[in-house]
């Protein structure tokens, strides 16, 4: 690829992690010697606009820690994250604020991630107000209403509180809030793990449509491999802080080359009772 078609020199990636590592201090031993736990070890990947990279692995494999570092919410011990070719770390003032607008997040638990004392309208317009989007309050309210419509919630939801909604509806409010500042990248950390399957399908359809319409890049952190197969383009398998295998989803699931991936795949219950493995 020549310099003209790829001005940032990163292969067209919107978000790029390069050699990310994170060590946490455990305790200070005798003589002040510190012990460390390496949570993330030399993790690199790139996500192009409109594409989805999945980070999969068991609890404690470091996948959520990677997500926090990508957003700049946790400082890496080594390595860096670039957004549109520019480093995420070390930004101040307006520069940091501009980045926050472009990178948003949806977490697992929509009960915990929405402020219980704010109406849906307040939650969804808060980011717009901070970033000075959509003119005045009336304009922001209209924009919030349009967003709710996009995520499939009625207009009268605006003046209600989170407790008045089901889990799936709350997750859609959280998605509307993330979209309110026109991000280009979404970190999705187990976005459907707390939802029933018939509700999960609504949220997955919504995410897929929004990605198509807006060219969003997704970093999808999950342990649910069935969802990965449905939604992701590239998958990175993590174990003990490292990416042990990566590749195109279909290729990697058909021919896993590491024991970690095989173990994860073998553990997924099949939907074919005649092929059960856990019980003879």
């Amino acid at each position, binding site marked *: 690829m020549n310099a003209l078609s790829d001005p940032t020199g990163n292969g067209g990636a919107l978000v790029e992690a390069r050699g990310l590592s994170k060590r946490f201090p455990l305790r200070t031993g005798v003589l002040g010697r510190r012990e460390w736990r390496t949570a993330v070890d030399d993790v690199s990947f790139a996500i192009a606009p409109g594409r989805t990279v999945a980070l999969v692995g068991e609890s404690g494999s470091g996948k959520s820690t990677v997500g926090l570092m990508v957003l700049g919410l946790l400082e890496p011990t080594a390595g860096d994250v670039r957004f549109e070719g520019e480093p995420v770390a070390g930004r101040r003032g307006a520069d940091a604020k501009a980045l926050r607008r472009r990178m948003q997040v949806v977490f697992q638990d929509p009960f915990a991630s929405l402020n219980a004392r704010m109406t849906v309208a307040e939650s969804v317009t808060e980011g717009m107000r901070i970033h000075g989007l959509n003119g005045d309050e009336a304009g922001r309210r209209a924009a919030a209403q349009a967003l709710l419509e996009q995520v499939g919630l009625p207009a009268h939801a605006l003046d209600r509180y989170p407790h008045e909604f089901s889990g799936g509806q709350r997750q859609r409010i959280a998605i509307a809030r993330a979209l309110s500042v026109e991000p280009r990248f979404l970190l999705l950390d187990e976005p459907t793990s707390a939802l029933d399957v018939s509700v999960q399908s609504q949220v997955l359809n919504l995410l897929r449509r929004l990605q198509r319409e807006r060219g969003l890049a997704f970093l999808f952190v999950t342990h649910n491999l069935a969802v990965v*197969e*449905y939604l992701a383009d590239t998958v990175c398998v993590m174990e003990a802080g490292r990416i042990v295998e990566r590749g195109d989803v279909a290729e990697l699931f058909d021919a896993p080359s590491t024991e970690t991936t095989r173990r994860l795949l073998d553990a997924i219950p099949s939907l074919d009772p005649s092929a059960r493995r856990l019980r003879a």
Partner: protein
Amino acid sequence: MANPLLHVEDLRTWFRSPRGIVKAVDGVSFTVESGRTRALVGESGCGKSITALSVPQLVPEPAGYIAGGRILWDSEDLLERTWSAMRPLRGREIAMIFQEPMTSLNPVATIGRQLEEASTVHGGAWRAARARALELLERVGLRDPSATLRQYPHELSGGMRQRVMIAMALANRPRLLIADEPTTALDVTVQAQILALIAELQRETGMAVLLITHDLGIVAEVADDVSVMYAGQIVEEAPTAALFAEPRHPYTQALFASLPSRSRRGGDLATLEGMVPDPAAWPAGCRFAERCARRLPECADAPPWRSLAADRRVRCVLPGVDGGTA
């Protein structure tokens, strides 16, 4: 055929609430036979956990109460027993494990003490209890059982804690194990180990298992028979293989169609429009009708059970034939 170990018949478990009577479980019937696993599958709020709690009569009182039905245990109706007359059954013949083992274990007692208590509470000798505890921990596959005996719950991983819960449940060789979402809080790899362990112990002891889950994959892996619940009722009942080959109730079909998979990439997954009706005011007719794509005028009346085979039935006037998983 001999009488099943457990036969729940037209069970109604209701709750008093400021908004009126909430009929969480409203006419549920199923059987569980020794050596077999019955799955109760359904989504949040369908009443599957309350059904499970009703069997050993552990529904939270005074808000909740069993308003009707029979719970036949070896043909004896347990609802005729007083609460205290249930005690010899609970934990001895009927054992339960739950989703979150951390909240089921006592945080300030060692694993050893809790296991000893489990084997002595029904009259076992303390002296034998320590040896029995060690044997149980070995049996559930803990790597260093004698070290685990001295540990506290917070020192164990989620998978180890669930193994301890299973050890405790098995302490008195129960005839029925009720497992309510036993692996929902665990990693998939640990989930597979725990499900395999339960199946293995079942083969050994011949106990019956009532498995409560929302996960059709788990049902496919371990259940012999399935009851699908929706809005406080069972809507479809079948042997596992038959249900997965050809789900017939529109709700069951929708559940299968909403599952993400590789073959569905690039297309939308099926969704269910609308919401489950209000449990304080169930509709008089079919409770799924409002969300059903095949709704007919007669769905305004309560749908009758339709028998599809000797061991298969569905609560629908128009059971579908499409919507298989293949």
